[in-house]
């Protein structure tokens, strides 16, 4: 295993001779997407005319199917098959595995008469058209025996348990130090259940050739999807060819396979015909995963100068009874501020609603809404500027583990942000700045999000025309993965972008873990980099060993790549010339990355500072953004444009969390009240107005060979808290219940006599 020290040496990416790294290069696949020619899973054309599937969803939260009558559906026009738990083909039992090294266990559909959540698929219809399948599904009569269900999170907090294997982290004597602290904050913050609301619903197009199935599906993890399907069908992994070339948003919600994948495969097999199956918009809300609601108690005990002496962040969250998942909302706080006496931990309520699961910045997104507001409350209590309060609690080493930071530029983010945003314009006293019927205020928050590197591989091939094709079982969920891999390849090989092809999303390509946890760019990118470095070596050997090459007999350590050429000083030839002559069939090599053995010796994160200015309508309680600015430090930035899109997109999620987004379970049925995008409100353009973000110069040589880190989740972390703090600064209304909708703000205004 390697050491982080191996990564410190300069390399083609860190030297960046042609300047492609960091440039705001346009999207590699942008033209295909804006012209509608990028085929998403449901749109992929199968080899012959497909059948169309439709899922029927349960309408109770918990219980049993006692009868299910499909006669009318079977007789409905165009119907080819109707499956329920009584006649669905055999699948492996849930959790089973037959393939060695399988990353995911079996996940059967329609697996029994038990209903575990409202929206659970209970029947599957395939027909000649989607409309006929849907019409038939609506004719299925299901009789249920309902059972009492736990549906109300806020009313069930007292049932919260310690998650298995997750003891609280206790350092020093929190209770003692807190009791003695001259300044105390003890507040509880609530963030609601949220849905991913990807533009593209889960969808699969499947067909069989002999005993091998091809599935085009919308999933963030290629291997995970392939293995899950193979285990469920109880066939070898090689018999599943999974493709996921374009994905219309994932956000963690497509980190796993849903019933569309297995039922499309089984349906296509049973019919001997390709089959398409997708979730409806309503089923995306009801029958996939969501971010659970979080109730966070924050206790801060500080000295009069603001130094924290006692620090506790405790989260209560929920998950489905049968699918344990912890939203680690307190984890981020373990690395953020110095304080000698600490308590952090999680509690979990098991509920009878759809599965909770990861959603963009799991943990930080809801978690930072609490602590970063509590810090604002403490700053006000002590009469200290909120930025200054954070600077006074800046740790030298990781506050929990004592490990050194790989690099930590939080202070620089906050100071640069304050200056660029104009923080000095802020009146620390709330409710002082009027603009007509608006009260105007500013708020800030810190951002932190961990950085990760996972094992990955990549393959790269150069052909006789000099075209270099990188292949990887990686996904691009709309973040820009195609583009940055093309940049890394072009810069490493010394060629232009149009000499590079990127092929992703195929289970037969060298595997990468996929998109999630903001590890994608660093992980897939590093493997791609290693593959290209290996290609350089292979081409150098080829040239040096070829009597017809001008480089023949040279010293491989002096070989350089640039302008499409391979060279030793002034002896050079083009890559196309070399390959077409010396290896006309092309040269293919692979490369791999894995975490360094000593990577865990460092506390490694990405950081940022958020600054928000809002107006509060004193008549209606409506909050409108006026300006938002973020400064981030996240290693070397590969692409100025796609990286900025990621962090500003994250900041917009923060605005949504603060002002509009959330779902609520109807306690009588177990269903969500918002089931479409007219009800579940994500911010629109008009909600954002003036938004900008910058990155600080940084290279984290403990992260990976290129010194890059993830940016996909950092932008959300803390963003909503900056907005909430700005609301307080504007009008003096301190809300702790997200989202801060007009009804809540208005109540606060009226309570203040405004």
């Amino acid at each position, binding site marked *: 295993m390697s050491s982080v020290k191996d990564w410190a040496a300069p390399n083609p990416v860190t030297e960046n001779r042609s300047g492609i790294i960091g440039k705001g290069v346009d999207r590699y696949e942008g033209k295909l997407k804006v012209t509608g020619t990028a085929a998403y899973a449901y749109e992929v054309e199968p080899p012959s005319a497909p059948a169309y599937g439709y899922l029927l969803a349960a309408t109770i939260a918990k219980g049993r199917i006692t009868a299910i009558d499909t006669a009318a559906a079977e007789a409905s026009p165009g119907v080819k098959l109707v499956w329920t738990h009584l006649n669905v083909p055999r699948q492996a039992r849930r959790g089973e595995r037959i393939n060695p090294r399988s990353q995911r266990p079996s996940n059967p559909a329609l697996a029994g008469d038990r209903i575990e959540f409202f929206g659970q698929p209970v029947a599957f219809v395939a027909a000649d058209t989607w409309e006929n399948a849907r*019409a038939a599904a609506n004719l299925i009569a299901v009789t249920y025996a309902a059972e009492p269900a736990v549906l109300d999170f806020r009313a069930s907090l007292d049932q919260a348990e310690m998650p298995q294997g997750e003891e609280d982290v206790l350092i020093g004597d929190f209770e003692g130090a807190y009791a003695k602290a001259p300044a105390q904050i003890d507040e509880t913050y609530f963030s609601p259940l949220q849905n991913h609301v990807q533009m593209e619903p889960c969808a699969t197009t499947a067909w069989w050739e002999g005993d091998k199935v091809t599935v085009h599906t919308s999933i963030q993890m290629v291997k995970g999807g392939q293995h899950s399907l193979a285990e469920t069908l109880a066939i070898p992994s090689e018999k599943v060819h999974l493709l996921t070339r374009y994905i219309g948003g994932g956000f963690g919600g497509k980190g796993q396979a849903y019933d569309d994948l297995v039922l499309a495969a089984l349906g296509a097999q049973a019919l001997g015909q390709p089959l398409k199956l997708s979730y409806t918009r309503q089923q995306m809300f009801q029958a996939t995963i969501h971010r659970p609601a979080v109730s966070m108690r924050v206790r801060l005990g500080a000295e009069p100068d603001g130094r924290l002496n006692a620090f506790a962040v405790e989260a209560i969250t929920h998950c489905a009874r049968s699918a344990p998942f912890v939203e680690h909302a307190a984890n981020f706080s373990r690395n953020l501020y110095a304080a000698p006496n600490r308590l952090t931990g999680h509690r979990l309520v098991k509920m009878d609603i759809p599965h909770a699961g990861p959603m963009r910045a799991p943990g930080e997104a809801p978690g930072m809404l609490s602590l970063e507001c509590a810090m604002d409350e403490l700053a006000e209590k002590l009469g200290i500027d909120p930025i200054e309060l954070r600077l006074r609690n800046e740790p030298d080493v990781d506050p929990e583990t004592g490990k050194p930071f790989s690099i930590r530029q939080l202070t620089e983010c906050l100071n640069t942000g304050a200056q660029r945003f104009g923080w000095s314009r802020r009146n620390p006293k709330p409710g002082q700045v009027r603009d007509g*019927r608006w009260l105007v205020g500013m708020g800030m928050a810190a951002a932190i999000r961990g950085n990760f590197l996972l094992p990955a591989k990549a393959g790269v091939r150069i052909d006789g025309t000099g075209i270099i094709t990188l292949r990887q079982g990686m996904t691009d969920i709309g973040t820009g993965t195609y583009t940055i891999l093309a940049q890394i390849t072009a810069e490493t090989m010394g060629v232009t972008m149009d000499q590079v092809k990127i092929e992703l999303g195929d289970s037969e390509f060298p595997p990468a873990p996929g998109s999630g946890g903001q590890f994608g760019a660093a992980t897939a990118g590093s493997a791609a980099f290693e593959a290209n470095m290996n290609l350089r070596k292979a081409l150098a050997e080829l040239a040096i060993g070829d009597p017809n090459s001008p480089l023949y007999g040279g010293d491989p350590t002096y070989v350089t790549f640039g302008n499409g050429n391979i060279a030793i000083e002034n002896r050079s030839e083009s890559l196309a010339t070399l390959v077409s002559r010396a290896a006309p069939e092309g040269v293919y090599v692979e490369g791999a990355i894995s975490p360094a053995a000593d990577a865990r010796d460092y506390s490694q994160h990405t950081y940022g500072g958020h600054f928000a200015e809002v107006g509060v309508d004193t008549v*209606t309680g409506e909050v409108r953004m006026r300006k938002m600015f973020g400064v981030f430090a996240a290693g070397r930035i590969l692409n100025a444009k796609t990286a900025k899109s990621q962090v500003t997109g994250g900041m917009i999620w923060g605005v949504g969390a603060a002002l509009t987004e959330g779902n609520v379970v109807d306690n009588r049925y177990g269903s969500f*009240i*918002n089931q479409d995008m007219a*009800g579940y409100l994500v911010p*629109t353009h008009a*909600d954002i107005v003036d938004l900008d973000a910058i990155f600080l110069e940084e290279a984290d040589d403990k992260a990976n060979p290129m010194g890059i880190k993830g940016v996909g989740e950092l932008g959300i972390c803390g963003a909503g808290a900056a907005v909430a703090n700005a609301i307080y600064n504007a009008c003096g209304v301190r809300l702790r219940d997200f989202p801060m909708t007009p*009804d809540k703000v*208005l109540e606060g205004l009226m309570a203040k006599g405004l």
Partner: protein
Amino acid sequence: MRPFTYERPTDVAAAVKAVAATPGAKFLAGGTNLLDLMKLDIEQPTHLVDVNRLPLAGIEDTPQGGLRIGSMVTNSHLAADARVRSRYSVLTQAIVSGGSGQLRNKATAGGNLLQRTRCAYFYDPSKPCNKRHPGSGCSAMEGLNRNSAIFGASDACIATHPSDMAVALTALGAGVETMTADGATRSLAVADLHRLPGDTPHLETNLAAGELITAVILPPAPPGGQVYRKARDRASYAGGLASVAVVGNQVAFGAVAHKPWRAEKTEAALAGGASAVEAAHAELAGAQDNGKNGFKIALVARMTADALGQASPGRGA
């Protein structure tokens, strides 16, 4: 699929006859509401009569000094019309506060008036709803009903009418012209177009089966300033939590009842010399809170007082 037939006549009388002659037939205008509801199996027309080719897409001056707006005029055109913008700015303000640009490009004056409620339970066919299935019950009553009515609700239904345009039309005292199944023309006030839910929330308007709205008639604008104010959860593309239209001394509220709500008590109070705040409260005194929508009462009172002040800066607060 649920089969339906389709035709696209070019003659108004033929369109009316086609709907009148076919049980379960419906007019299709912009389709931005009807098609969504068909996809959810909530609307189940047997026959669609597409009215987009009818010669009803013009805006004309009336001899009385008002405007006659063809029912097929799109919301975008109506809001942008120079006469509307200068003489009926409340209508432009109301329309552009609704939906999104794409929706307004498709939505028509007739269809906007007849759009159905946005009650979340109405949109969820797995739930009881008296409007969808008379007698099945009202899920909103004990449910998550922050957006429900504060005026004129019944034990059967607490839904609100979501149109913004209709609120401005109500404040303007506008009317609609229709053609009935027998080919006759009739007129009624926009304020009389919609019904309160009572025991029959599935009956939403006073139009007869097959009756087509052919035009919206704007009377000459009364003197005084015009203001449309809408409070909503996000800055655009969201239905109102509540809205207020003020046209001189004429006032209507939106998203507070099963129909656009003419605030007659507010108007009477204004006529009697009440201040803006007093006048606002005169109507709101009759509002009913059902536990989760109480904020609307304060919200409408504050918006009304503010909008009255903005419309007529000379008026006492």
